[in-house]
């Protein structure tokens, strides 16, 4: 279990890390959007393909599970 946890921590760091500074630079001109969603808002529903090409519906988890959505920039970039 400990190994799994460590892997997850590493993945989260990889997902969101900034080791690619220099290769991918966000614009510095203030175009960065801050999401208008905030705590207390309803999460917009969606249907997306997972990495096994199966559809995932956010609404399927309603009433069943809490959901953590971790948006990352690009695969393989540690970004």
């Amino acid at each position, binding site marked *: 279990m400990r190994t799994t946890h460590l892997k997850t921590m590493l993945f989260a760091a990889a*997902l969101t890390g900034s080791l690619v500074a220099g290769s991918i630079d966000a614009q510095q001109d203030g175009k960065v959007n801050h999401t208008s969603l*905030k705590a207390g808002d309803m999460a917009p529903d969606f249907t997306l393909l997972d990495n*096994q090409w199966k559809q995932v519906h956010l609404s399927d988890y309603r*009433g069943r599970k809490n*959901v953590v959505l*971790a948006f990352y920039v690009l695969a393989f970039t540690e970004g």
Partner: protein
Amino acid sequence: MAKLEASDAVVFGISIDSPAANNAFAQKIGVTFPLLSDMNRKVLKQYGILKMYNVEKEEYDWAQRTTFVIDKKGVIQSVEEEASAINPNNAVAVCTKLPKK
């Protein structure tokens, strides 16, 4: 991950990559939760987190690093952007505090 499962949560990674790329990425880093493909950026727009990146003077709109925690009623419980989204501990803490039912 164990902590999140114990708190009755599921985790999804989301990017604009294809399922094939995400699957290779998942295997490479040994991730145990699904990686979702928002290839048409529909969800990024819905969630308001499209961000412009410059690569070799061309602009690309990809996801801003953001973590949302959503409870069982579909209500957003926390939003973390950029640097604060790197550390999963806060998401774990939020999930742990949510009611079990």
